[in-house]
């Protein structure tokens, strides 16, 4: 199993690929690509699923990412770890997907407010479920949140990815976090309190 710098098993995009596998993949060996998929298919899928919120779309995107990897791996020169190279490709693919979506415009403030208003905070079934709460955020807000808080992207990097300013990224993130906080509180209020029973 690949290890990270601290000797612990590496996970996700931080996994290291041995040179032989990379060389075989660059020579077009599909078994080597299968090995790369077994390492990075899941991280790609989870990244796509967290942001897109739809399994079928996420799988389509993983397929697109790996087909592109097969087509472009010869251009990989090893300046960065392969996982970072692949992650950048995956993030770009997700952002492209968001740009193409009909609801891409829901990143602006009005759309975020519409999403907030549409949430039924009095629903007793609204348990604290991180996944379902994330899905209540607009797609781009969710993307900014996931990429910043989970994948470690800076606001400068996010600004470049989305073709916007850093203040845009900060603003979207702040609103997304505020909205998540509100959802958590409303979920707490809607749940029965055991201490009172």
């Amino acid at each position: 199993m690949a290890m990270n710098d601290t000797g612990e098993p590496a996970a996700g995009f931080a996994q290291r690929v041995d040179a032989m596998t990379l060389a075989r993949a660059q020579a077009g060996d599909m078994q080597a690509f299968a090995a790369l998929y077994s390492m990075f298919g899941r991280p790609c899928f989870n990244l796509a699923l967290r942001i897109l919120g739809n399994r079928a779309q996420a799988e389509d995107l993983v397929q697109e990412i790996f087909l592109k990897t097969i087509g472009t791996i010869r251009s990989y020169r090893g300046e960065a770890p392969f996982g970072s190279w692949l992650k950048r490709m995956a993030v770009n693919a997700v952002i492209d997907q968001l740009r193409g979506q009909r609801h891409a415009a829901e990143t602006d403030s009005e759309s975020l407010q519409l999403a907030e208003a549409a949430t039924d905070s009095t629903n007793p079934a609204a348990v604290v479920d991180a996944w379902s709460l994330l899905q209540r955020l607009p797609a781009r807000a969710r993307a900014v949140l996931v990429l910043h808080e989970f994948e470690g992207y800076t606001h400068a990097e996010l600004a470049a990815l989305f073709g916007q300013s850093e203040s845009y990224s900060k603003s979207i993130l702040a609103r997304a976090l505020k909205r998540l906080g509100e959802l958590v509180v409303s979920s707490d209020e809607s749940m029965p309190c055991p201490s009172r029973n």
Partner: protein
Amino acid sequence: MSQPELSFHHLTQRLRLRELPVGEPSPDLWQRIADTHAGRVRRARMRRGIAGSSLAALVLIAVLVVPKWLAPAATERGVDWQARAQALELQLRALRDGTGAHDDAGAVEAQSEIARVDDALQTAYDTGAERDQLEVLWKRRSELLGALISVRQHHVEISRI
């Protein structure tokens, strides 16, 4: 009353966001990817094959047909019948000066025919005839001069014997 704001740290703890990843892709996803790639490779090969066949056909056509198109032009360019006739004229004159022999009936007839061709050439130039028509006449004149030279050369040989 305003709702309390939660930090992301609090949120991650409260929502256990770090545990979010949410599942595995379908077990057959890699096979779908590999199949799609194989299909693309097949289609690309087919396109290359079609393009290669088309190119080969074009090359074949070029090899077989183009020389035939160019051949007549090359022939026309290759033989300058006017220049050839003029060269033969000089050769004939040299033969006549060298032997001083009288022409026989055949040679006289050839000379008459050459005179008719000269008239036709003059008329052709006067009327602005096409190059092809002029070429025909110059070719005819060359042939007659060649025949006349042959007759005279034969006559020289007989005289020497």
